[in-house]
C-alpha cells in the first residue's frame, strides 16, 4: 500500500515547538542554574511519576500528529488517486480498534448490542432480541452511538487536548513576554498604553470574547469553504484559530506578572550597573531581564496547561470549541451527555472521556506544583 505524508498546519507547529524546546535544552544543557531545578524535579517521586504519565500522553499525541493519506487502488498507469480520509501513525497502530465498528452503542466488553432489534431467525421467524456484536468482548470501553470504539476515541482525543494546551502557550508567550517586560522596564507612556490594552481585554468576559472571535472565524471558514481540501484540514484550521484566540486573549495574566517583576528588576544594582556601562536597552532586556523572569514564565506555562485542557471541554459544549467533527474530549462528553437519560444508562463514553482527562490534568497539576516548588524560591514548602 502506498502512502503520501500530509503535513497539517498544526503538525508543522508541533514540530516547530519540539524543535524550539530541543534547541533551548541543548543551549542550556551545561548551565547548572538551569539543570539544578530539573534534577530536583526528576529526583522527587511525584515529579518523576507525573513526568512519566505526561510523556506517555505526549507520545500518543505525537504519534497522532504524523499524518498521511492512503493511495486508492486504481488502474496501473493512471494518475495516483488518494483517499480523502487523513490518517495518522496512531490510526495505523490502532487499526484493529479503528475498523472494529459496531452498529451502535454497546457496553464495555459486551457481547451483544445495547438496543433490541428485530432479528430474522434461521427458520424465517422474526423476533426481538439483542443482536450479537460483530466483535464481541473486544471493546474495552464499549462503543459510541455510531459504533466506534470508545478507547480509540479517547486516545485520539489526547492530541486535541495537548494541542490546545501547548499551541495556545506558544502563541501567548511572545505577547506576554514583549508587552509585560516592556511595560515594566520602560514605564511611562509605554506602560500606560500596555496597561490600557490589558485592562480592556480583561474587562471583556473571557468566554464571550472567545465566543465572539470563534463565531467570526467560523463565518470566515464557512464563506471560504473551497480553500480546504479535506475535512481534516478544515477542522485543523479551526483548531488553530481557537488556539490563536485563546492565546491572544490569554496573555494578560502572565504579562501582569512579568510587568511587576521587570519593575522590580530594573531598579536592582546589576541592571543599574549595566546601564551605567552604556549597555543598550535591547541588550539589557535580553541578557539581564529575560533570564531572570524565565522561572515565572515556566511556572505559568505549566499551570495554565491543565486549565486549557479543561477549557476545551467547556468551550466545545458552548459550541465555540473545536470543530464538531473533530475527535476531542469536549465533543465526546457533549455527544454522550444526553444519553444519561436512557434506560439503561449509557455511561461508558462519558466515563472514558472524564477518566482520560482526569489523569492528564491531575498529572499536569501535580507536575506544575513540582515545577513551582523547584523554580520559585518563595513557594518552597508552602503547598
Amino acid at each position, binding site marked *: 500500500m502506498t502512502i503520501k505524508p500530509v503535513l497539517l498546519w498544526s503538525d508543522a507547529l508541533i514540530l516547530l515547538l519540539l524543535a524550539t524546546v530541543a534547541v533551548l535544552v541543548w543551549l542550556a544543557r551545561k548551565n547548572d542554574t538551569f539543570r539544578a531545578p530539573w534534577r530536583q524535579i526528576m529526583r522527587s517521586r511525584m515529579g518523576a511519576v507525573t513526568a512519566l504519565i505526561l510523556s506517555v500522553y505526549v507520545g500518543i499525541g505525537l504519534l497522532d500528529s504524523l499524518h498521511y493519506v492512503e493511495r486508492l487502488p486504481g488502474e496501473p498507469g493512471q494518475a495516483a488517486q488518494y483517499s480523502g480520509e487523513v490518517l495518522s501513525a496512531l490510526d495505523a497502530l490502532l487499526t484493529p480498534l479503528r475498523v472494529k465498528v459496531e452498529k451502535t452503542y454497546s457496553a464495555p466488553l459486551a457481547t451483544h448490542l445495547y438496543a433490541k432489534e428485530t432479528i430474522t431467525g434461521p427458520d424465517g421467524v422474526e423476533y426481538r432480541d439483542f443482536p450479537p456484536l460483530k466483535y464481541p468482548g473486544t471493546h474495552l470501553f464499549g462503543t459510541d452511538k455510531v459504533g466506534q470504539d470508545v478507547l480509540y476515541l479517547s486516545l485520539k482525543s489526547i492530541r486535541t487536548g495537548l494541542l490546545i494546551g501547548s499551541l495556545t502557550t506558544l502563541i501567548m508567550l511572545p505577547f506576554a513576554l514583549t508587552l509585560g517586560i516592556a511595560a515594566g522596564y520602560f514605564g511611562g507612556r509605554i506602560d500606560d498604553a500596555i496597561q490600557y490594552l490589558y485592562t480592556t481585554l480583561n474587562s*471583556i468576559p473571557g468566554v464571550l470574547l472567545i*465566543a465572539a472571535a470563534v463565531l467570526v472565524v467560523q*463565518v470566515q471558514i464557512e464563506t471560504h469553504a473551497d480553500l480546504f481540501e479535506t475535512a481534516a484540514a478544515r477542522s485543523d484550521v479551526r483548531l488553530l484559530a481557537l488556539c490563536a484566540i485563546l492565546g491572544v486573549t490569554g496573555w494578560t495574566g502572565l504579562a501582569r506578572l512579568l510587568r511587576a517583576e521587570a519593575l522590580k528588576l530594573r531598579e536592582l544594582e546589576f541592571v543599574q550597573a549595566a546601564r551605567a556601562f552604556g549597555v543598550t536597552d535591547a541588550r539589557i532586556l535580553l541578557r539581564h531581564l529575560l533570564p531572570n523572569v524565565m522561572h515565572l514564565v515556566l511556572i505559568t506555562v505549566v499551570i495554565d496547561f491543565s486549565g486549557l485542557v479543561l477549557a476545551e471541554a467547556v468551550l466545545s*459544549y458552548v459550541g465555540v470549541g473545536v470543530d464538531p467533527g473533530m475527535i476531542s474530549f469536549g465533543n465526546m462528553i457533549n455527544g454522550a451527555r444526553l444519553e444519561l437519560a436512557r434506560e439503561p*444508562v449509557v455511561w461508558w463514553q462519558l466515563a472514558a472521556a*472524564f477518566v482520560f482527562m*482526569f489523569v492528564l*490534568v491531575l498529572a499536569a497539576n501535580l507536575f506544575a506544583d513540582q515545577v513551582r516548588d523547584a523554580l520559585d524560591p518563595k513557594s518552597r514548602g508552602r*503547598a
Partner: protein
Amino acid sequence: MLNYLLRRVLYAIPILLGVNLLTFALFFMVNTPDDMARIHLGAKHVTADAITRWKSEHGYDKPLFFNAEATGVEKATDTLFVEKSLKLFVLDFGAADDGRDIAREIGQRMWPSLAIALPTFIVGLLAYLSFALLLVFFRGTALDTGGVILCVALMSISGLFYVIGGQYLMGKLWHWFPISGYQPGLDAWKFMVMPVLVSLIGGIGDSSRFYRALFIEEIGKDYVRTARAKGLSDLRVLFKHVLGNAMIPILTGVVVVIPRLFMGSLIIESFFGIPGLGSYTIDAIQAQDFAIVRSMVFLGSLLYIIGLVLTDISYTWADPRVRLE
C-alpha cells in the same frame, strides 16, 4: 474619595470605548453585515435582494463610520458605529435578530441569574474560607495533607463532570430535585438547590487551595508569633489576625466578580435550564445572534469596571492605611 471616583469614571470611558471598537471590528469589519445576512438566511435563500432586505429590516444597511449621503451632523451619526455600538453607552441595546428588545430581556432574565449566582457566591465564599482555615488550623497533620490532595483532585476534574454527575445522582437516581427548569416565586428554591450545590463543589478545589496558600504565608510572619507569645488562643490568632491580614488578596479576587453575578453562569444555566442571562448568552452564541453577544460583552465590561472600583473601595474598609485620593 469623590475625586477618586470621578477619575475612575473618566478612566472607564476609554476602556469601554476600546471594548466597543474591538467588538465592532470583529462583528462589522472582519465579518460584514452581508456575511451575517447570508448566515441567517441560510444557503438556499441567498439572493442579492434577500440580503438587502434582511439588512434593512435589521438596520444594518448603513455605512460603517461615515455616511456620505446624509446631511450635516448625520454624516457622522447615521452610521453603524453610532447606531450599533455607541448607543450601548446609554444602555440602548436595540433589538435582537428575532426582533425582541434586548434591554427588556435583560431586565427579566437577571433575576433568575441572580437567584442562582448570589447564593452560590455567598455560601461558596464562606465554605471555601472555612475549609481553608480548617486546613491551616490543622497544618502539617494528615488532615491538612489529605485536604490538599482532595483539593488538587477536585480541581483536576472537568466542571462538566460535576454538572452531569449532580444531575444524574440528585435528579435522576435519588429524585431529590427536578433535573432542570425554573419557576419564579416560592417554589424557586427547588430549582436552585442543585445548581448551587454543583457550582459549590466545582469551585472548592481551586479556591480553598488558593486561600490556604494565602493563610500559610501569613501565619509564618512575625506578628503571628508575637500574638501567640502574648498568650492569644490559636483560634483567635487565626480568625482575627491571619484572616484580617489576608483580606486584601482575598478581596482582590472576590469583589470584582460581585457586579457580574447578574450575568449568571453560562454552563450552569444552560445545563439546568435556568432562564437567566447566562443561558440567554449561550443561546445567542449558538444562534449566532451578534446583537445580543455585543450587548452582553458591553454589559460584562461595564460590570467588571464597576467591580474594580468596588474592589478599591473595599480595600479602605479592610485596611485603614489605604486611602483613596
